[in-house]
């Protein structure tokens, strides 16, 4: 394999990893607070690409207006899912919550099929992003560079929000101890809703860029990336935002490299993440950055 080709694969891996990281953060934040796998997160991501599709292709709104609009809509959708499917079950056994999450995911997928049809649609990526540039001998889409940059900006914003603002402090407090936080006067429901909104917003950022990178959208497109990103969150240590980012990059780069170096295994690409998950869970169940917690009896 030549260096050029390797670099091309690496840049692909990094941009895929960035997308995984953006989606994985949503999982990890929700898990940190509610101890719940938000199964609907992958579908919220899918809805974001549909919102963008309708904004640009159907309503012909320029992309710089559509994209912020998509972020807002998706955040609202995430909060809506939380209010309908999870909030009524705050005190229910965890298994009910998980089933409700699966139901919500299933519902969003089927609703999309009914409303928008099951036929894949071409994503109308603005030309600005999909132009190809020559770097030496390698031809790379501009997007491949934009994705990591946007991801880093989003992560910086997130870091500021969580570490420097009052809302962020409330989020950290709730994820540390739900009940004590409530005693301290933190509005739990508002904080949780905000967390869902924030996670969904990042998923929307990922979704828009995903749509431009893999310009074909369909109602079930969120399922496999959703599962993979949850796995990325687990690999990094669930509940830990930096961990989710690391996990996302490991998964994204690993997947691309697997296909690049072992082309025979291309068909097994989707199984790679699960194998990695099971290996991690067996050797270090709390993930790379996760802390070991002892169970109190």
């Amino acid at each position, binding site marked *: 394999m030549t260096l050029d080709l390797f670099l091309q694969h690496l840049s692909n891996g990094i941009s895929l990893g960035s997308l995984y990281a953006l989606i994985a953060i949503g999982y990890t934040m929700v898990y940190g607070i509610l*101890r719940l796998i938000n199964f609907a997160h992958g579908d919220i991501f899918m809805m974001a690409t549909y919102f963008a599709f309708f904004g640009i292709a159907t309503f012909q709104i320029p992309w710089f207006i559509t994209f912020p609009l998509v972020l807002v809509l998706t955040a609202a959708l995430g909060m809506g899912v939380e209010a309908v499917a999870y909030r009524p079950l705050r005190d229910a056994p965890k298994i009910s919550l998980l*089933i409700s999450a*699966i139901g919500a995911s299933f519902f969003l997928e089927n*609703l999309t099929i009914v409303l928008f049809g099951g036929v894949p649609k071409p994503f109308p990526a603005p030309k600005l992003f999909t132009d190809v540039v020559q770097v030496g001998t390698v031809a790379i889409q501009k997007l491949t560079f934009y994705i990591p940059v946007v991801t880093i900006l989003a992560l910086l914003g997130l870091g500021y929000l969580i570490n420097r603002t009052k809302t962020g402090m409330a989020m950290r407090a709730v994820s540390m101890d739900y009940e004590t936080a409530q005693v301290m006067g933190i509005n739990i429901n508002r904080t949780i809703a905000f967390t869902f909104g924030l996670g969904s917003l990042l998923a929307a950022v990922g979704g828009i860029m995903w749509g431009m990178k893999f310009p074909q959208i369909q109602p079930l497109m969120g399922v496999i990336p959703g*599962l993979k990103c949850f796995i990325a969150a687990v690999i990094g240590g669930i509940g830990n935002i930096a961990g989710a980012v690391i996990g996302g990059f490991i998964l994204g780069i690993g997947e691309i490299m697997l296909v690049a170096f072992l082309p025979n295994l291309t068909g097994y690409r989707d199984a790679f993440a699960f194998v990695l998950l*099971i290996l991690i869970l067996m050797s270090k169940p709390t993930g790379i950055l996760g802390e070991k917690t002892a169970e109190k009896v």
Partner: protein
Amino acid sequence: MENKTRNWILTTVAVLLLVGFLYFADNYLDLYIVRILNVCAIYAILGMSMNLVNGFTGLFSLGHAGFMAVGAYTTALLTMPPAVKKQIYYLAPLMKPLDQINLAFPLALFVAGLLAAVVGGLIAAPVLRLKGDYLAIATLGFAEIIRVVFTNTQSITNGALGLKGIPALTNLWWSFGTAAFTLVVLRSLINSSYGRALKAIREDEIAAESMGINLAKHKTLSFVIGAFFAGVGGGLLGNLLGTIDPKMFSSMFTFNILLIVVLGGMGSLTGSIISAFIVTIANEVLRFLDESINLGFVVIQGKVGMRSVVFSALLMFVVLFYRHGLMGETEFSWDRLLASKICRRTRALFRKNLQQRGVDR
């Protein structure tokens, strides 16, 4: 009246009625209805086996579709005549011993169950160390891996093309017989000391362990038995439908079975049976949602997929407002049925009617 004798008589009568009905259905009802009845019974098997793991042992496992796939492919490969196999494996020929083997249906089903159980046993070792949603995602992952492997092993499973022309050996007797067998086996298991240990694990793992219950052993037992019946159910389904492909056994399938388990009540075998019938029949009845409805003066356009929307909404509705399902954790019993409000009211009505007619009792 002696309750035990009465219940025994009622059970015998019910079984005889069921057998009579099956005979009638087998000979006189049209194929569409027979097929739905078959699907009901198979879903009942799948629901009960999933309930053993999820409802009785409290292990939230989402790997059911994987075990079904193993069972369905095994039964199909073992029962398909060699000539048909030669015909459908045109991309890559079927592996050596498999292309000639042809077993009797019951034997093939049994082998399918065993193979699914072996797969379950292999998966159990790493997976059952996990709890809660980690377990859920890991089992889901394993099911997905099984599916990906099946898509890629061209010379065994015929890859994404799937299998066609599987002999239609599943009939009402096999599906209902297996369902009854499953019920009897799982019931005896649950009422044994093993079953009580499983329930103890569900209620509180740490307490159960400190009472001397071997967690790993019991969890594996439940998981393997669940996988066995999932495999058998998958086998029955494959030979009923006639065609299978890896796509069929996606996580959607697991969620369908999950809906049955939740609706029937986590921890109630009879609940799973009842809800398997309700869900399957409702699925057929709701078919009108996918088609256009003509009200004479206005035509409501049906939308393909509407059925699934209603279904997923139903799943959420059940969990949000009706968490214990139809049966909760109780099983069907004649005592309960006869003591129920409807039954008492019917009897009271009946008595009143008799009195009005002047019949003295």
